[in-house]
């Protein structure tokens, strides 16, 4: 267990050279912030470096920038900024602090017009969540599930990409299995928060009650509510972001993006003098950016071999997987086997 807010060594100097600013969530949100933070911790612990995270006072561009100021004041050399909310703050900060390096995840600096301005001291990393979602949807249908669900947290780009991929993966598998048109049903919704609430639990329970066999819970603590519902209904859950198999018996697999590894790698590159400033990286299956944790997965029919096959297809771009910008909503993904029951 990591000491969340503690620095590993010589904190007495008051200098923390690796910094992370959290976005809305907390450092232990089971998701974005946590994944990135674990990367920071792992690298710093291994290399005996000081590190620290900062929580902005509110959710605004200026508050994020103020937190960056604070991190710099505390001696940060490299600052990890998880989330698109940092696009504008990092845009400003990269000019304000030319000697400091920034890693922004899931976003790139711009002034608000979405034209990337990635300076030499900034590295922007994206994940192809649609591929991770695709793997999950594919594996589930291959494993025999036909009544499925997707419960996103808030409709932010990463969550949408997961969901779109999930639908497409299911459709792809159904095609491979030669199922009839419309034989796979996916209930699809965004619950509007990232919390464990009775409302989310009741929603998941109602789906399970109606026959849904597995729900992809894609929104931090929303997963805890879904798992709860699954535990009582004796049904299944697909986790997200990190391997969530340890959280509940009901988790058959997790649609992972390798946040931790990517942050760890970026830090390694920086300290190795190979910081890829100015670049926008897309961490896809090709570089191991996404995966299903096959060792901990509880599939009955879907095998490692199946997994490797489909994974290679994705790497080789044999399958075109649409992202969040490519369709208005999940029902517009033009699937044939899968019927998306959009609930909003």
């Amino acid at each position, binding site marked *: 267990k990591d000491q969340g807010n503690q620095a590993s060594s010589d904190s007495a100097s008051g200098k923390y050279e690796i910094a992370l600013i959290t976005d809305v969530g907390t450092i232990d949100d089971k998701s974005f912030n946590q994944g990135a933070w674990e990367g920071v911790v792992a690298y710093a612990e291994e290399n005996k470096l000081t590190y620290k995270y900062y929580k902005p006072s509110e959710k605004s561009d200026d508050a994020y920038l103020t937190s960056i100021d604070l991190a710099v004041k505390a001696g940060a050399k490299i600052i990890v900024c998880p989330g698109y909310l940092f696009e504008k703050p990092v845009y400003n900060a990269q000019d304000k602090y030319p000697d400091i390096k920034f890693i922004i995840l899931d976003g790139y600096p711009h002034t608000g017009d979405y034209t990337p301005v990635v300076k030499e001291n900034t590295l922007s990393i994206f994940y192809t969540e649609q591929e991770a979602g695709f793997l999950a949807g594919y594996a589930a249908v291959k494993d025999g599930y036909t009544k499925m669900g997707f419960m996103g947290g808030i409709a932010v780009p990463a969550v949408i990409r997961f969901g779109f991929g999930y639908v497409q993966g299911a459709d792809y598998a159904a095609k491979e299995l030669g199922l009839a048109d419309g034989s796979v049903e996916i209930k699809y919704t965004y619950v509007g928060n990232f919390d464990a*609430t*009775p409302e989310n639990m009741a929603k998941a329970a109602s789906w399970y009650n*109606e026959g849904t066999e597995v729900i992809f819970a894609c929104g931090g603590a929303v997963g805890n509510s879904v798992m709860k519902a699954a535990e009582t209904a004796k049904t299944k859950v697909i986790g997200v972001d990190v391997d969530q198999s340890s959280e509940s018996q009901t988790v058959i697999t997790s649609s992972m993006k390798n946040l931790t590894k990517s942050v760890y790698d970026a830090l390694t590159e920086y300290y190795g003098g190979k910081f890829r400033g100015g670049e926008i990286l897309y961490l896809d299956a090709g570089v191991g950016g996404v995966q299903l944790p096959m060792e901990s997965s509880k599939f009955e029919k879907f095998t490692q071999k199946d997994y490797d096959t489909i994974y290679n297809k994705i790497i080789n771009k044999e399958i075109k997987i649409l992202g969040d910008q490519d369709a208005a909503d999940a029902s517009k993904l033009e699937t044939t086997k899968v019927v998306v029951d959009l609930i909003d």
Partner: protein
Amino acid sequence: MNTVYFISQQTMFFAIPLLIVALGGMFSERSGIVNIALEGIMVMGAFISISFISIFQDRLSGQILLILAILVAGLSGAIFSLLHAFASINMKADQTISGTALNMFAPAFAIFVARMVQGVQQIQFSDTFHIAKVPILGDIPLIGPILFQNCYITTFIGIAIAIISEVVINHTKFGLRLRACGEFPQAADSVGINVYKIRYAGVIISGTLAGIGGLVFVVPTSTNFNATVAGYGFLALAVLIFGQWRTKKIFVAAFFFGIMKTFASAYSGIPFLKGLPISNEVYKMIPYIATLIVLAFFSKSSQAPRAEGIPYDKGSR
């Protein structure tokens, strides 16, 4: 039929914690102390009792662990509520002050301590408490599936608390005295009742029940505790007022709200609601709008305890 059973089972998860906490609020308010700290007390009760579960779940499990946890939750709620009692009874403070302070303190404290002790703020627990079906009782037609399948003992505890509250308030010496203190403490004082003691008792009972309510809220709805009860303390306050500070009406109000919430969350699984051209956000609003409408028709005569919120001062006339 399946749908009906499902709705009633789900309703319990919303209604029971609201019921328990609102009843807690009732004891405090009918003794004359406004308790807006219900939210904070719920958080505190849930925090300590879930920590208890997570520590002891290696050694204990099932209903015994849950019952012990309920005791822990009640105890911690009671102790925490003493702060409110002290400020509003001894210090004669405005009762919203300490309530607000407690609401702010509890989640901050829960996060702070959890971080200090285990690094992360969420406290994991494994649910060994769920009852798929109570033997024998679960097979009773109609009632079985509604009450005794897919349930927790907390449901029965909640209903038991309601019944006990009704009896205590209306048919015991303590209840009579409590009511007197909430309506006209000078009258109680003039017949030798120690208003301070009775009010302490009222607040402590409310703390106990709110603490239990916190646990009962978390157990059926999540697999961990994350320093929040999602505003249900305030909703319980609303249920208390909705229920006109009377046990039976609180019971009805809690279940009214619970059913509304169930419809709002699970409408996609309810055949006759599914087809309606109503959006998700509108469904979410319905319980609150419905409550407002019901209130508009049934609030003409308020039965709020008359001395509620007024610090008792022996010297005042």
